[in-house]
C-alpha cells in the first residue's frame, strides 16, 4: 500500500481524534464516541484515540468496554502508554469495580424486567442502580423511557436533564425530553395534551397552576365500587395466605423443636436411669457374691453336715459331763461324742473347743476307740469294708496316733475294698507308710512294707 494512502488514513484518523477530543471537552460524550470510533476505523494504531475512547466509556458507566479498549491499547503499544495508569486506577480500587459490576448486572436485570413487561420492578431496579452509580447514562435513559411509558413526564424531564448534564450530545435523551415536553404542553382548556389522552382511562384530573402540575384524583366511595370490595377480599385472602405460609411453618417448627428437646431430655433421663440400673445390678451381684461368701463362712462355722459348732460343743460338754459323773460310762460318752463331727470343725478357728476335746480324748480316747475298733474289725472280717472303714476311722479319731491295730485294719480295709479307686489306694498307702514310720518294730509294719511294695509295683 502506498505510503501516501497510509499517511492520508493516519491524517483522517487524527482529524476524527481531534474532533472527538473537542466534543469530549464540551461533554458531548456521544459525539466524542462516534468520532473516536471513526478515528479508530481509519487507524487502529491511534493509541490516543483508543485511550480517550476508553476514558469516555468509563465516564458513561461502561467499565468493561473501557477496560477492553485500554487492554487493546496496551497490547498495541506496551511501553509509554497512559492506558497503564487508567488500568491501575481501576485495579487499585477493586471494591469500586465490584460495585460498578453489580450496577451493570442490576441494569441488565432491569432490562430483562422491561422485556417481561414488569415495568414497576424495572423502575425500582434502575433507581437502585443510579443510587450506586449516578453516572450510568444508559440507566438514566432507560428510566426516562419507562417514565415516558408510564406518563410521568416531569420525571422524564428530570432524568433526561441529568443525562444531558453528563452527555450534552445525547440524542436519545433529547428525543425523550422533547417527547415529554410535547406531552405536557398546554392543550385545549388549560388541560395537558397528555391528560386529554389519559384522563379517560385513569380517572384523574390534571391541570397546570402556574409552573406546578396539579393532579387531582376523582373522589370515589370505597364501598360503592366493586373493585374496592374485591381489593378488600383479595387483601384478606393474601393475609390468610401469609399467615399460612409465614406464621404456620414457624409455629410448626417451634413445636417440632420443643418436641425434639423433650425427646432429648427423656432420652438423657433414660440413659441416666439405665446407668443407675446397671450400677444397682452390679451392686446386687456384689452383695450376692458377698452373701454367698458369708453363707459359706457361716457354713464353715456351723459344720459341713449340718452339725453346728454349738451342737458339737453341747455334745462335747455332755460327754465331759458323763466323764465327770461316771468315767466308766463309756457307752454314754461314745453316744455323746458320736454327734461331734470333728473333721468339719477347724482347729485354728476354735482353739478352746479343741483344747477341751483333746483333754477328753487324752483321758478316754483309747476307751472310746475300743468299741469302734471291735466293730470295725468284725466288719472287716465279714468283708464289709465300707462299714469297717467308717468304724475304724472313728476309732482312729480317738486313738489313731497310738494304736497300730486301728491303722493297720483301716489300711487293709481300704486296700482290700471291692471296687476300690485311686483315692482308697492313696489312703491305704498313707496308712501303711504311717505304720512303717511310727511303728517300725511292730509285726504290722512288716506286712505294711510288703503291702507298700505291692502298691508301688502295681502303680508302676
Amino acid at each position, binding site marked *: *500500500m502506498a505510503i501516501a*494512502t*497510509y499517511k492520508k*488514513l493516519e491524517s*483522517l*484518523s487524527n482529524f476524527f481524534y481531534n474532533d472527538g477530543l473537542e466534543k469530549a471537552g464540551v461533554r458531548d460524550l456521544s459525539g466524542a464516541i462516534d468520532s473516536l470510533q471513526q478515528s*479508530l*476505523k*481509519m*487507524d*487502529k*494504531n491511534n493509541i490516543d484515540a483508543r485511550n480517550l475512547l476508553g476514558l469516555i466509556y468509563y465516564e458513561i*458507566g*461502561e*467499565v*468493561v*468496554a473501557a*477496560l*477492553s479498549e485500554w*487492554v*487493546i491499547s496496551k497490547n498495541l503499544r506496551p511501553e509509554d502508554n497512559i492506558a497503564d495508569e487508567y488500568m491501575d486506577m481501576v485495579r487499585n480500587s477493586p471494591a469500586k*469495580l465490584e460495585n460498578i*459490576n453489580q450496577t*451493570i*448486572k442490576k*441494569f*441488565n436485570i432491569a*432490562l430483562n424486567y*422491561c*422485556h417481561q413487561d414488569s415495568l414497576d420492578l424495572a423502575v425500582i431496579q434502575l433507581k437502585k442502580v443510579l443510587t450506586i452509580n449516578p453516572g450510568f447514562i*444508559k440507566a438514566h*435513559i*432507560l428510566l426516562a*423511557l419507562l417514565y*415516558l*411509558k408510564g406518563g410521568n413526564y416531569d420525571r422524564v424531564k428530570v432524568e433526561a436533564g441529568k443525562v444531558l448534564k453528563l452527555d450534552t450530545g445525547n440524542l*436519545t435523551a433529547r*428525543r*425523550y425530553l422533547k*417527547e415529554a415536553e410535547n406531552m405536557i404542553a398546554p392543550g385545549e382548556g388549560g388541560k395537558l395534551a397528555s391528560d386529554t389522552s389519559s384522563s379517560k382511562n385513569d380517572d384523574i384530573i390534571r391541570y397546570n397552576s402556574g409552573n406546578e402540575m396539579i393532579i387531582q384524583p376523582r373522589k370515589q366511595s370505597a364501598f360503592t365500587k366493586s373493585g374496592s370490595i374485591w381489593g378488600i377480599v383479595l387483601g384478606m385472602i393474601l393475609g390468610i395466605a401469609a399467615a399460612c405460609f409465614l406464621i404456620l411453618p414457624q409455629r410448626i417448627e417451634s413445636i417440632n423443636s420443643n418436641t425434639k428437646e423433650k425427646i432429648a431430655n427423656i432420652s438423657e433421663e433414660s440413659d441416666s436411669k439405665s446407668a443407675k440400673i446397671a450400677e444397682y445390678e452390679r451392686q446386687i451381684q456384689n452383695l450376692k457374691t458377698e452373701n454367698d461368701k458369708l453363707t459359706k463362712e457361716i457354713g464353715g462355722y456351723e459344720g459341713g453336715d449340718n452339725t453346728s459348732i454349738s451342737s458339737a460343743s453341747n455334745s462335747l460338754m455332755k460327754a465331759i459331763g458323763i466323764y465327770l459323773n461316771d468315767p466308766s460310762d463309756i457307752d454314754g460318752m461314745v453316744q455323746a461324742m458320736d454327734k461331734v463331727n470333728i473333721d468339719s470343725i477347724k482347729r485354728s478357728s476354735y482353739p478352746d473347743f479343741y483344747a477341751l476335746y483333746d483333754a477328753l480324748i487324752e483321758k478316754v480316747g483309747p476307751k472310746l476307740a475300743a468299741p469302734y475298733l471291735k466293730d470295725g474289725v468284725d466288719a472287716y472280717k465279714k468283708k464289709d469294708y465300707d462299714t469297717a472303714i467308717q468304724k475304724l476311722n472313728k476309732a482312729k479319731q480317738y486313738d489313731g496316733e497310738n494304736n497300730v491295730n486301728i491303722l493297720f485294719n483301716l489300711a487293709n480295709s481300704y486296700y482290700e475294698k471291692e471296687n476300690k479307686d485311686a483315692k482308697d489306694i492313696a489312703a491305704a498307702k498313707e496308712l501303711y507308710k504311717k505304720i512303717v514310720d511310727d511303728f517300725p518294730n511292730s509285726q504290722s509294719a512288716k506286712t505294711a512294707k510288703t503291702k507298700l511294695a505291692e502298691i508301688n509295683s502295681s502303680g508302676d
Partner: protein
Amino acid sequence: MLNFEEELKKFKPSLEIEDAEDIIYNQDLDDMSDVLIKLLKDAKQEAESTKRSK
C-alpha cells in the same frame, strides 16, 4: 409519539466484567488500511485469474 417497544429494542445489555475476556478477543480491530490491503489483494488475485483464463 414514541413507540415504547421500538425504543426498548435499542437498549442492549451492558457488558459485565466476566465477559471482558471474550469481548477483547472477539473485537473487530480491522481498520481502513486492512480493508484496503484486502481489496488490493483481491484485485490482484482477480487480475491473475483473468490472465490465466486468457
